């Protein structure tokens, strides 16, 4: 059965291979091969031997995916079945040269894995027997050939894709061929192969492999890799190659720290080379940075000397976060391990364990700790002298309390110091040698270099340490504050050299020799500034080394004294009691229980700052140090407990003390409670803070805490409440700003978008709340709100809405607090003004607020806003255009909107009315009111007035702007014709104010001389305003005249300036004036008669009347009715057109040739008005007779009428008429005859009359009468002929006269 199955699998595999070969499609070939692989690997592995060769034939397949798959398959098979591997490897090697990069890459990938696999197998097999499989041997041979080819590929130019993998192979090779310090060098038991692989297992011996040879080869390969990154070569590499090389090398360095010395100089040297092109290759730059960080993180001892330079290089790459992180993480290890290279005691064997690659990590750490302590003992021993002597003086009794074993533990270590002093061995000689070399200065640099390189680092460290005894009693002056601590160390190394110049020489030497530098620089880092301070402060005490030994024992005792006793004398001595008490109290408050004090030193002369900065560090290190101390049994926990506070107070020197913070298990609620209470305490501490000048700190603290606290603690709410409760006293302004800026920073930071959005909402709420409370709590005159808004980071929409509310209060609100709202508006507007001035970014928005306020329905608000906008803002050039546009838009809205609004409001109102009526009906069912009718008329009025108000609302800003920018005026005139009646009314109300403000400016004059069509009425009003009580300028007058003459011909336009025109100018216009409607004429008349205050009346009343009479209705085209009306108007004004005036007028008129048509009418009227003029009129009449009045038929009719009216006085005049005319007159007016005859018949008169007259009167009859009659007839014929011409006119005239008389009556 089994055989059958096996056979069937064999057939199956055979079939698959066949069809794979036969198939045309690449994908189907692949499918077949996959199945074949499955069969061979998982179903029947016995088939492998048969199939491997057949498979290898596939290498000639043309489709590259097949070859690639084959390469992959070789790996899969080879890793499981090494026995058949050697048969497939030639195929794999041939793939390395494949034309398709993908195949070559797969070959390398596969080969890399197989190489390690084979090597491992070979090593292990060789370890336990000298008999090695032939197939394995053969595989190894092929593998070596593979290796040669790939290494060759790696360093030849070619496809980057292939090279990258080849480089990776070289990396693997180097790693495989070199001992792994992290894996035991002892070969594992046969059963235990999972520990990894370490080539150093070979040390026990191997038939084929030699660990030394492999190491050499690894070293060579590494050299090749490094060469790639050397300067000229690196330029030819692609970016990706550089990245991979850097990563590979750093990986090697980290995994094989022994190569640090070879790899890091190249990488560090790469930095400047790369930074030249770093702009183009951020990738490699980044890779380098990561490599440095990785190297820095390496805790292996070989890495340590490089830390300083790595740190520096990282700093150079970017001074940003990465360096901080790396150094922070490793700082402690770093400082400890660097001190390892500066071992304190030569006889301390534990120091050397660090160099053993195989040393256990934990072990190493412990050792480091111990050596650390020792070192500190050594360095600070001089310090201890003073303290301990103090102790001895001040605390004679207590010293006995120290635990005995502690002393015992310490003493041997201390004893070693003098021992070393006594030995004049190689160390002392070396010190002398160094001294001699350094004293030669720069030229000895080379020798110094060689010397440091040639001696072991341990020995060198010895030299440094032993030389410390020779530290000069007085430090070189340049080692004051700020001098680098490395100098310090140098000067201590080289006691003979004290000149500052040489010190700096040495410093330059140090840069030549990285090893020396790394040896010398680290202590400065670990010891911080304290070392310097030590030296400075305690020069005298550094003098004698032997003294150290005397008191060293007691120094270790010191920490175990009760807390209160120990620090005080010392502190007092140095005048730093403040510091210590602060530290003490801090510690007390925190209740930190246990602090180790094994190596506590005594320095308290720390600055305040230093003590603070060291505290976190202390805490950090305490844990580790304690474990160290406890495990070595140097100190027992009880003493730790007892001496806790004292040691902290005394030991925050560079000798890091330790303390443990006990975990206090608080519930979430109590944590919150604590946080909240703390917050409130800070909040309530405003008085103290203000007193001590810490307000700024407090503010920052509050803002920051607000940010950090969870919202459920409501820190913002607390802050708000605090600020609002007493804005002034609580520094509300400053605090609010602080908080807002903090929040703003949060929003601006490149955080995830949602938390910044949350910050925005807190910001806005906070600002709004504070602003609202200021508004509500402070009087309107207060400037706080304005100030706050001006200074906040940005204005939120909510706050702008608040401002809007202030500037444009709702009507309802207005009713509530009418008085206040006015001030509020002022407050709001002044804030807006400030914002516009001081916040350019919010200018547009604030302007809008102000502008909205200028069209507020309430006039008071509007006026205030308009004043602000027109007087203050409009003068700002940046926004004036916007203001103007807004005003214009509003002005134009009057044109467009108002008709619509009429409609709307009508509807609205009427519907309201209906409702109202409806209500009323319901309430007063029985009462039938006609209120509907009444209210309709009221409605019209109210609609009208509300429309006017509305128009005024829209226009007032524009009007205000006109006063500032005259050119805007024209617009008003232009739109005038197209605006509604209500708007016209609004304009009518407003324009006088405007015109009075700006006077007859040139712009206005221009408009006057060329007014837009349809603006005549407005223009009239303007003119009236301009001339009302003021003497108009000559320009205005001439503009008006110009307009009159050129455009309108409407004399009305002249009326306002009439008083200021000359007589000659007025007289020609009189016909037009007369033609005006009655009221306007009367207005003009009064103006003309009144004249200007300066020049007096333009025309006398007489002249006026004469001018009227001289109008020729036909020629001037004025209806006679207008002229008679004008006359009538004149006559009405008795006080002006007095008797004398009339007499004068008549007198002059009678002389006119021809006589004015209305003369007789005027005469009649004059007498009717002033009967006393009768005699004068008679005289006129007789003069008319002399002028042969009968020759003017129209006047003749009037004359006769006049005579009739004025009988009997007129009889004497009538009798003066020649007989023919008399007869004519009597014939026309027979009523006259009897009284006239009677009058003439009076003896005294009759005697004066000529005979012909008497004949006409019928008083005499004689022959002469015929001749007289003849003449009269001829005269009558004359009259008749002219009568024929003017027959119609006469009738007209007479009717006119009669009507005039009637009017006159």
């Amino acid at each position, binding site marked *: 059965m089994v055989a059958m199955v096996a056979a069937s699998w064999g057939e199956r595999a055979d079939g698959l291979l066949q069809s794979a070969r036969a198939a045309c499609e690449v994908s189907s070939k692949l499918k077949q091969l996959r199945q074949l692989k499955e069969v061979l690997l998982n179903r029947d592995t016995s088939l492998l031997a048969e199939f491997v060769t057949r498979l290898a034939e596939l290498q000639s397949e043309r489709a590259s995916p097949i070859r690639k798959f084959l390469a992959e398959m070789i790996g899969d098979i080879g890793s499981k079945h090494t026995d058949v591997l050697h048969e497939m490897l030639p195929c794999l090697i041939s793939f390395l040269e494949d034309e398709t990069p993908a195949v070559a890459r797969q070959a390398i990938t596969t080969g890399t894995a197989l190489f390690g696999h084979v090597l491992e197998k070979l090593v292990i097999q060789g370890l336990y027997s000298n008999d090695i499989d032939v197939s394995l041997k053969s595989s190894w041979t092929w593998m070596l050939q593979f290796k040669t080819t790939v290494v060759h590929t790696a360093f030849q130019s070619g496809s980057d894709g292939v090279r990258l993998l080849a480089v990776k192979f070289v990396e693997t090779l180097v790693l495989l061929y070199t001992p792994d310090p992290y894996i035991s060098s002892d070969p594992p038991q046969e059963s235990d192969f999972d520990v990894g692989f370490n080539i150093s297992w070979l040390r026990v011996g191997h038939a084929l492999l030699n660990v030394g040879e492999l190491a050499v080869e690894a070293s060579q390969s590494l050299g090749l890799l490094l060469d790639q990154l050397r300067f000229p070569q690196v330029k030819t590499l692609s970016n*990706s190659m550089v990245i991979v090389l850097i990563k590979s090398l750093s990986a090697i360095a980290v995994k094989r720290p022994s190569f640090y010395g070879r790899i890091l100089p190249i990488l560090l040297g790469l930095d400047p080379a790369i930074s030249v092109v770093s702009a183009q290759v951020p990738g490699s730059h980044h890779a380098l940075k990561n490599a440095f960080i990785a190297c820095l993180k390496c805790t292996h001892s070989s890495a340590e000397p490089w830390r300083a330079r790595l740190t520096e290089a990282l700093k150079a790459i970017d001074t940003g976060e990465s360096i901080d992180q790396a150094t922070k993480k490793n700082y402690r290890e770093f400082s400890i391990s660097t001190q390892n290279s500066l071992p304190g005691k030569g006889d301390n064997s534990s120091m050397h364990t660090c160099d053993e690659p195989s040393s256990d990590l934990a072990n190493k750490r412990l050792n480091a700790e111990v050596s650390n302590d020792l070192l500190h003992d050594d360095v600070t021993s001089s310090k201890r002298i003073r303290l301990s002597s103090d102790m001895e003086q001040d605390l004679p009794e207590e010293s006995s309390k120290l635990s005995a074993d502690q002393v015992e533990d310490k003493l041997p270590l201390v004893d070693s110091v003098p021992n070393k002093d006594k030995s004049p061995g190689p160390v002392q000689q070396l010190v002398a040698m160094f001294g001699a070399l350094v004293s030669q200065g720069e030229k000895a640099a080379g020798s110094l270099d060689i010397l440091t390189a040639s001696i072991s680092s341990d020995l060198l460290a010895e030299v440094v340490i032993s030389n410390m005894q020779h530290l000069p009693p007085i430090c070189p002056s340049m080692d004051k504050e700020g001098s680098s601590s490395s100098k310090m160390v140098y000067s201590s190394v080289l006691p003979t050299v004290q000149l500052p110049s040489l010190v700096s020489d040495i410093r330059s030497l140090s840069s030549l020799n990285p090893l020396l530098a790394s040896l010398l620089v680290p202590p400065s880092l670990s010891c911080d500034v304290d070392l310097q301070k030590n030296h400075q402060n305690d020069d005298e005490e550094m003098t004698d080394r032997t003294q150290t030994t005397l008191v060293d024992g007691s120094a270790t005792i010191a920490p175990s004294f009760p807390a209160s006793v120990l620090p005080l004398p010392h502190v007092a001595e140095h005048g730093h009691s403040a510091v210590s008490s602060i530290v003490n109290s801090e510690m007390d408050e925190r209740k930190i229980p246990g602090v180790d004090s094994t190596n506590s030193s005594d320095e308290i002369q720390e600055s305040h700052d230093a003590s603070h900065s060291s505290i976190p560090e202390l805490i950090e290190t305490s844990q580790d140090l304690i474990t160290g101390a406890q495990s070595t049994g140097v100190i027992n926990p009880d003493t730790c407990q007892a001496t806790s506070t004292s040691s902290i107070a005394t030991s925050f020197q560079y000798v890091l003390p330790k303390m443990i913070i006990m975990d206090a298990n608080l519930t979430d609620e109590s944590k919150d409670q604590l946080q909240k209470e703390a917050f409130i305490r800070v909040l309530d501490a405003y008085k103290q803070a203000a007193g001590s000048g810490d307000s700024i700190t407090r503010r920052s603290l509050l803002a920051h805490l607000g940010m*950090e606290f969870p919202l459920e603690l409501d820190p913002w709410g607390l802050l708000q409440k605090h600020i609002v409760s007493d804005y002034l006293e609580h520094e509300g302004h400053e605090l609010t700003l602080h908080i807002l800026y903090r929040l703003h920073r949060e929003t601006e930071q490149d955080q*995830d978008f949602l938390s910044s959005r949350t910050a925005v909402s807190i910001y806005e709420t906070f600002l709004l709340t504070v602003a609202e409370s200021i508004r509500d709590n402070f009087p309107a005159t207060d400037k706080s709100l304005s100030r706050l808004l001006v200074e906040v980071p940005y204005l939120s929409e909510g706050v702008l809405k608040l401002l809007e509310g202030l500037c444009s209060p709702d009507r309802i609100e207005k009713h509530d607090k009418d008085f206040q709202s006015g001030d509020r508006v002022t407050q709001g507007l002044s804030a807006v003004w400030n914002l516009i001035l001081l916040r350019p970014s919010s200018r547009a928005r604030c302007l809008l607020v102000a502008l909205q306020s200028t069209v507020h329905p309430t006039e008071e608000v509007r006026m205030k806003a308009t004043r602000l906008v027109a007087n203050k803002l409009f003068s700002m050039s940046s926004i004036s255009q916007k203001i103007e546009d807004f005003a214009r838009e509003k002005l134009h809205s009057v044109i467009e909107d108002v008709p619509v609004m009429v409609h709307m409001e009508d509807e609205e109102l009427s519907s309201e009315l209906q409702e109202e009526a409806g209500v009323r009906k319901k309430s007063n069912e029985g009462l039938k009111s006609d209120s509907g009718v009444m209210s309709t008329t009221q409605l019209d009025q109210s609609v009208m007035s509300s429309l006017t108000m509305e128009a005024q609302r829209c226009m007032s800003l524009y009007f205000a702007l006109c006063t500032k920018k005259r050119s805007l005026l024209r617009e008003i005139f232009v739109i005038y014709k197209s605006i509604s009646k209500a708007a016209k009314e609004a304009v009518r109300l407003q324009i006088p104010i405007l015109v009075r403000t700006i006077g007859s400016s040139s712009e206005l004059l221009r408009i006057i001389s060329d007014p837009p069509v349809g603006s005549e009425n407005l223009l009239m009003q303007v003119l009236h305003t301009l001339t009302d009580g003021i003497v108009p300028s000559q320009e205005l007058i001439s503009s008006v005249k110009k307009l009159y003459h050129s455009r309108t011909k409407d004399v009305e336009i002249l009326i306002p300036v009439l008083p200021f025109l000359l007589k000659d100018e007025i007289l020609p216009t009189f016909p037009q004036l007369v033609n005006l409607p009655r009221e306007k004429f009367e207005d003009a008349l009064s103006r003309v008669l009144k004249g200007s205050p300066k020049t007096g009346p333009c025309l006398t009343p007489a002249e006026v009347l004469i001018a009227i009479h001289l109008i020729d209705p036909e020629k001037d085209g004025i209806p006679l009715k207008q002229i008679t009306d004008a006359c009538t108007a004149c006559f009405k004004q008795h006080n002006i057109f007095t008797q004398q005036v009339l007499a004068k007028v008549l007198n002059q008129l009678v002389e006119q040739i021809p006589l004015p048509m209305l003369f007789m009418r005027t005469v009649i009227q004059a007498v009717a008005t002033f009967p006393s003029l009768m005699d004068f009129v008679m005289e006129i009449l007789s003069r008319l007779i002399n002028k042969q009045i009968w020759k003017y038929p129209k006047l003749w009719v009037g004359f006769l009428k006049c005579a009739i009216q004025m009988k009997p006085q007129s009889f004497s005049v009538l009798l003066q008429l020649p007989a023919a005319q008399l007869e004519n007159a009597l014939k026309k007016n027979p009523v006259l005859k009897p009284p006239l005859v009677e009058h003439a018949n009076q003896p005294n008169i009759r005697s004066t009359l000529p005979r012909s007259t008497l004949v006409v009167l019928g008083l005499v009859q004689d022959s002469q009468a015929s001749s007289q009659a003849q003449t009269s007839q001829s005269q009558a014929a004359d009259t008749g002929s002219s009568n024929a011409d003017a027959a119609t006119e006469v009738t007209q005239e007479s009717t006119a006269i009669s009507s005039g008389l009637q009017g006159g009556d």
Partner: protein
Amino acid sequence: MVARLRCAMVCSSNQNRSMEAHALLKRHGFDVSSYGTGAHVKLPGPSLREPNVYDFGTPYKYMHEDLRRKDVDLYKRNGILPMLKRNLGVKNAPQRWQDNAADGFFDVVMTFEEKVFDIVIEDLNNREQRLTRSILVINLEVKDNHEEAAAGAKLALDLCQEIDAAGCWEDEIDDIVSKFERQHKQKVLYTIAFY
């Protein structure tokens, strides 16, 4: 098209940027996954300091329900709910980069923040390198907001298409990147790691 590249989109919470890109690349037929590198999935909460924290692996659907229950208005307004809705259409739950060893090997990893880039690289370095299989890690700086994420996803797609089009990206990556940088005026950081 022969087997495309396997891509991974990585941001810190596997919510916004990586998911945006994931969705887009998926639409364009890529074999794509997405991850976050953070310790937890953090979504903004009611306040700055109270994010909603979920473990990786919590289904998007659950988060959606959870937040909807908490404050539907807030999370709708700030775009969280729509985002989660989009995400649950793409895959079930956010995944953590550091725990993705079982997901197989990627050819290209796209990160959207340098911090994430560094974490991915460090993580890859810490993994055992056995395969000598290269992986391209590219960082594209994209701000963590909806708009930028959408724009960033387009860039990521563009870049992935370019790389995919190249037969052997190792040979052409420098050109592709510099061309991309020129074209989009954006700096791209890349590195090559190995499985």
